[in-house]
């Protein structure tokens, strides 16, 4: 029998040892908790706050910036705040999309980090009631001139392929670039796109007193313990971080969970109240967020959580990041229909708690109450005021036009296409199954990818873009350029750009220069998004992308989706015949 390696300190010991600091809570935050509770938080509760108040889960440092995103127009059915955003595409259909980062896990363990990134973003899509139809990626690595970078690239590409190919969702496009600012902190962003009938729209809310909280999917182990606070901490190349058990993805299990969840939504829409996937800070954040959005409380019995390992303590059960798990809220008295459906498909399914109306977050374990917290307080950490300052380098740039010295055009072109960032990526993206589902009209190799919607004349174009160097030189213009590039790629297929998701990859927001970059980049993205009528409907923030205090270039990945009314009108990049004229348009 294994028991937890963690020793549960008493509330007093936590205070004395300042364990909360190690877990990422500030002195001020801890004091606030003590004041609000009017007692010292116990071990489980302290862990709960550290998870919920991490940047990764709470966005406490980026919320102020995110609120500025423009996210409303005539198409928007669901903006930011849910698993994924939703846009109306006519015929009672909707497109659902979102992007996610898995930068830090992929640096530690490239294959599993990238694979579980794909798994996580797909859960965001199908938890909204949509069938995932495509995955894209956006990758940044150091220069490809050493064994370690090669290992990272190979692992990440194999991980995306390993998960996406097996679950049967095509990876239809993406982009990658190489620059040594990413050597110690690669970026692994993935975007997923789904399709649904508007009638089956689901949101992650726990409404209705007495309704059942149902856990489905994989059993809980000690996987990725502390992943959320890990993702919110800077890397130091000196010390090997205390590596919690690496999360391993199981695409086979996820396919069963996906198919069964979509079946449940189709057949039992009347009794399913809400669905949410368990991502960062696992069971904790999913259950707390669902209850908070509904303005309710929640009570869970942790003894009922399906467990893979023995001797797990509440802290571990709540913060585990085991993959392929979902939380459903089902109308009281109707639980068995859902439980049976999942069990028939050989999946664990267990009712683990109920919705309450007292606004409390209550956990029971072995006949004891191990946490009892005010929910709204738990889900609304202080939003620290962050300083911003224009980076020195931006003042000092020599603005004069750079004149390249080109004497031998052939040599220069060869040099350019020999650069890893510019060279064809075909040898890497050929590992991705870009055709499964048999709907891919434009495969990787074009500007944007195009996926037809069977049974209609429509198709969806999609692309991911950003050039961190442009943002480094001018964060606002660079943000505008990322959106503009994405739109150009969409338009090149013949489609109309309709919306944006993003992944804001930045350094530490505590650094005023980085915070300035973040604000400016978002302002740039926003202004261009409005101009193009492409609202920002979902996204993800990845901060603390630094190595030894050196931040990456500001790299806000833009994922854009376009709608093509008649797929027969699709355009591809290849020249079509000799003697056709070539035009250069634009600036």
């Amino acid at each position: 029998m294994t028991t937890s390696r963690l020793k549960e300190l008493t509330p007093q010991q936590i205070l004395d040892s300042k364990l909360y600091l190690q877990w990422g809570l500030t002195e001020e935050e801890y004091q606030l908790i003590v004041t609000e509770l009017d007692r010292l938080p116990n071990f489980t509760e302290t862990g709960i706050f550290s998870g919920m108040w991490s940047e990764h889960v709470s966005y406490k440092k980026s919320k102020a910036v995110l609120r500025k995103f423009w996210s409303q127009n005539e198409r928007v059915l669901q903006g930011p705040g849910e698993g994924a955003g939703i846009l109306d595409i006519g015929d009672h259909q909707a497109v659902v999309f979102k992007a996610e980062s898995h930068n830090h896990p992929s640096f530690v363990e490239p294959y599993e980090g990238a694979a579980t990134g794909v798994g996580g973003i797909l859960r965001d899509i199908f938890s909204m009631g949509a069938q995932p139809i495509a995955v894209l990626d956006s990758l940044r690595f150091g220069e490809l001139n050493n064994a370690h970078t090669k290992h990272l690239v190979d692992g990440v590409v194999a991980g995306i392929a390993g998960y996406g190919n097996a679950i049967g969702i095509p990876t239809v496009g993406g982009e990658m670039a190489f620059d040594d600012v990413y050597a110690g902190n690669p970026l692994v962003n993935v975007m997923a796109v789904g399709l649904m009938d508007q009638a089956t729209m689901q949101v992650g809310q726990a409404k209705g007193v007495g309704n059942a909280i149902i856990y489905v999917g994989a059993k809980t182990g000690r996987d990725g313990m502390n992943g959320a606070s890990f993702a919110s901490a800077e890397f130091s190349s000196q010390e090997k971080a205390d590596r919690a058990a690496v999360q391993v993805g199981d695409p086979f299990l996820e396919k069963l969970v996906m198919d069964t969840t979509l079946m449940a939504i189709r057949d039992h829409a009347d009794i399913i109240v809400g669905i949410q996937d368990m991502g960062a800070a696992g069971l904790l954040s999913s259950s707390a967020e669902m209850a908070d959005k509904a303005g309710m409380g929640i009570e869970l019995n942790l003894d009922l959580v399906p467990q893979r390992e023995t001797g797990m303590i509440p802290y571990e059960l709540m913060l585990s990041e085991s993959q392929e798990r979902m939380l459903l809220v089902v109308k009281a008295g109707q639980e068995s229909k859902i439980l049976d459906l999942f069990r028939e498909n050989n999946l664990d399914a267990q009712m683990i708690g109920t919705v309450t109306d007292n606004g409390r977050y209550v956990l029971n374990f072995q006949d004891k109450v191990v946490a009892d917290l005010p929910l709204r307080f738990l889900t609304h950490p202080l939003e620290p005021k962050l300083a911003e300052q224009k980076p020195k380098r931006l003042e000092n740039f020599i603005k004069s036009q750079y004149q390249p010295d080109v004497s031998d055009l052939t040599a220069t072109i060869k040099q350019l296409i020999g650069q890893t960032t510019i060279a064809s990526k075909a040898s890497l993206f050929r590992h991705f199954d870009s055709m499964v589902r048999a709907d891919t009209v434009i495969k990787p190799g074009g500007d944007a990818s195009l996926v037809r919607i069977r049974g209609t004349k429509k198709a969806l174009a999609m692309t991911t873009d950003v050039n961190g160097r442009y943002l480094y030189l001018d964060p606002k213009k660079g943000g505008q350029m990322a959106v503009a590039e994405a739109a150009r790629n969409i338009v090149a297929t013949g489609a109309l750009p309709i919306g944006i998701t993003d992944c804001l990859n930045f350094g530490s927001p505590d650094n005023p220069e980085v915070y300035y970059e973040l604000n400016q980049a978002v302002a740039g993205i926003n202004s261009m998004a409005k101009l193009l009528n492409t609202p920002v409907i979902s996204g993800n923030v990845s901060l603390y992308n630094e190595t030894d205090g050196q931040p990456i270039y500001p790299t806000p990945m833009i994922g854009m989706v376009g709608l093509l009314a008649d797929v027969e009108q699709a355009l591809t990049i290849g020249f079509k015949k000799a003697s056709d004229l070539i035009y250069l348009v634009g600036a």
Partner: protein
Amino acid sequence: MYTAKIYVTYKPSIVDPQGEVIQAALQRMNYQGISSVTQGKYFEVNLAAPNVAAAKNEVANFTDALLINQNTETYRFELVSTDDEVQA
């Protein structure tokens, strides 16, 4: 010459989806008494080395470097000497 037999398994805390699926398959095939299955890798490597200590060292090095994923896997190995000739 030595033969190294290297057994690689997941670390105990890591999910082993393969093992679980195989166990379920064996149960469906009516092997009811099976309580767990784990699948790992097995390597046989023939190598030349001046002596046992050097061989052991080399095996440990390349296993760490290439054969296993140190984040998720662990291993043990046995070393067998394959030549009994008298040294020249």
